[in-house]
């Protein structure tokens, strides 16, 4: 299997590929030529940062497996695996600053984790006890998952326009200037909303990064059906820079996103990053990829596993085995804890049906709420 069958233009495999990468699949530091302008962003990384990148990728992988198990055991309505996409997500998440806002799609569990979300809140939504799950303003401005593909790209653009209008960006103070990063995928890139968001972002030069995880598959449809050109090239058509990165390289993801977000905060406008990665698991637990995917293709990508790659790199740097073992243990504990707490999730009161439909009084909703209470009360002991 060659990369050509994965990417119709062969960009990914070509020696002249513009794809930005830092690490080889084997975990050696050999930056691509196109990586030159992004290398300074790696220099600021500390040993602690490297360890954090690794730890988060391992932890979320384990959590992901546990959540899929919960679904199979009937404890979740659905699970949306992120297996294989950890580097794209962890690298880009660490490139944000606390004051930034993050608009996820629905597979960015570790991005939420890094922004301060308790990922059990994601399980609450997938367990059917809430339509949302958390308050973005209390969890690192990590906004709610959006299940209609690409809808959030427009919300993100509007939000970024708001940052411009209220003067919270491009003041020349990187410590407080704000920007937005929005996650979407190769499937969502075909939605009209994704294009409209790019149009609006370019028109108003909103401070934001479009982070497109091309995981090669939109459920059962390959990216070749979504686009005959590499998706990052679309950015140019909208009038903004586009960069393709090796999405399984956490350092490439970090460095390129860092620069793009810095540019956005500094008033240099929006940009698009296409992270080439792979959805190793199913689209959701309702999916069966063996019906449409070539096992050789899966093997090709498993050999490029982002965690194995980064571990090799860290080992090359001389990281102690003790740390790697401790991370495995932490991940197991994390997943077990998430499982335990997921099983303790309780459902909401039935009043949640009515509570937040409107901010202001609404006669019909009030009437129906009162009716339901009377109706339910009629079954209670002592009632007729």
């Amino acid at each position, binding site marked *: 299997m060659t990369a050509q069958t994965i990417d119709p233009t062969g960009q990914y495999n070509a020696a002249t590929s513009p794809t930005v990468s830092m690490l080889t699949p084997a975990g050696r530091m050999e930056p691509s030529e196109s990586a030159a302008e992004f290398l300074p962003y790696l220099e600021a990384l500390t040993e602690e940062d490297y360890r954090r990148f690794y730890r988060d990728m391992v932890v979320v992988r384990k959590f992901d497996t546990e959540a899929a198990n919960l679904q199979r055991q009937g404890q979740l309505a659905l699970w949306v695996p992120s297996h294989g996409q950890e580097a794209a997500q962890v690298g880009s998440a660490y490139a944000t600053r606390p004051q930034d806002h993050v608009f996820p799609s629905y597979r960015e569990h570790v991005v939420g984790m890094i922004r301060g979300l308790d990922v059990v809140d994601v399980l609450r939504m997938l367990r059917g006890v*809430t*339509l*949302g799950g958390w*308050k*973005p*303003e209390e969890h690192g401005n990590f*906004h*709610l998952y*959006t299940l*209609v593909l690409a*809808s959030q*790209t*427009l*919300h*993100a*653009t*509007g*939000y*970024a*326009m*708001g*940052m411009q*209008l*209220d003067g919270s960006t491009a003041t020349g103070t990187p410590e407080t200037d704000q920007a937005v990063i929005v996650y979407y995928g190769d499937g969502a890139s075909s939605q*009209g*909303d994704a294009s*409209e*968001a790019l*149009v*609006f972002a370019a*028109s108003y030069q909103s401070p934001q990064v479009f982070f497109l995880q091309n995981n090669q598959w939109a459920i059962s449809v390959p990216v070749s059906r979504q686009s005959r050109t590499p998706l990052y090239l679309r950015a140019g058509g909208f009038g903004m820079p586009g960069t393709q990165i090796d999405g399984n390289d956490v350092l490439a993801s970090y460095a390129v996103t860092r620069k793009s977000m810095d540019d956005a905060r500094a008033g240099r406008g929006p940009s698009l990053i296409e992270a080439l990665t792979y959805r190793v698991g199913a689209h959701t637990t309702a999916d069966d990829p063996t019906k449409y995917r070539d096992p050789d293709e899966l093997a090709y990508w498993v050999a490029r596993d982002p965690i194995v790659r980064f571990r090799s790199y860290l080992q090359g740097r001389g990281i102690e085995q003790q740390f790697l073992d401790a991370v495995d243990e932490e991940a197991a504990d994390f997943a077990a804890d998430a499982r335990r707490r997921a099983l303790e999730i309780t459902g909401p009161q039935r009043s*949640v049906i009515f*509570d*937040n*439909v*409107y*901010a*202001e009084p*609404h*006669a*019909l*909703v009030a009437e129906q709420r009162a009716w339901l209470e009377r109706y339910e009360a009629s079954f209670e002991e002592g009632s007729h």
Partner: protein
Amino acid sequence: MTDTTVRPPAPTPTSPDAQAAASVTLPMTKALNAGMRQAMLDDPKVLLMGEDIGPLGGVFRVTEGLIAEFGDKRVLDTPLAESGIIGTAIGLAMRGFRPVCEIQFDGFVFPGFDQITSQLARMRNRHEGGLIMPVVIRIPYGGHIGSIEHHQESPEAYFAHTPGLRVVSPSNPHDAYWMMQQAIRSDDPVIFFEPKSRYWPKGEVLLGESGTSLHESKVVRVGTDVTVTGHGAMVSVLLQAADLAAAEGISMEVIDLRSLSPIDYDPILESVQKTGHLVVAQEAAGFVSVGSEIAATVAEKAFYSLEAPVLRVSGFDTPFPPAAVETHFLPSPDRVLEAVDRSLAYS
């Protein structure tokens, strides 16, 4: 028989605005403009978005002069994409703004329909009450202007059917003036249907008057024999019908719904208890419509008061026809009277 046309309400004596109220005569376009301008003066977070709303002032000139007064950071001429307008308005509302979006024509709202129904209407509920969605979507709607396809439609039922939205439609310049301000002040999304055939007739507007609740229907003509409800441009048709009926000795009570979601039933039920007859009228197709909903609710809540089935007068269940035959499609005063006669024939 007494027929009394009820005038727009006088300024509320307790309102601090009352003393400032100045009576002017304006077409609805200018009244809407004055309402938006006042809202922009009152709250710096109010901003306008839409296609051609800047230097042109919108295709109907409703926003004329506002970009000159408030600048292009308060009045945003947008790219030509309705989903983009609504979707970014949602993001702006999350950021604390109060966007007022203009959809150029009724039939052009559908590219933004997904963002309105799947996102805007549910955003607060999805956030478990953690945010508000103060977005107004202005939609010029309805027929009587002899225009081409997609320019004469009445799609209000789609929005009234969607939980999370509020849907209103003024019938006259004064209501347009204060309802616009209240819609902008609302912390919920409001779909604001502007009856474009009523854009140009002038009426008295009490500037500085804050009106009643956004969701109160109103008896605009008192009568005793039959109750007729309508909204937007239909109200003037109903008032014409009432004049014709009066000449024949029939006393029609006319109710301007003003709000299509929620619907204020109290004046309707009170009226039906008095008249025993109800005709609901609208330009929109009748099947699964606002009129159908009123008919069903009044049948439930005022069954013993009714002396006749509730009758619907509406556009036909067809696409809006070529303008050359629109007068046969749109409910006219005579079509209203035909239904009134049928209703009265039951008693």
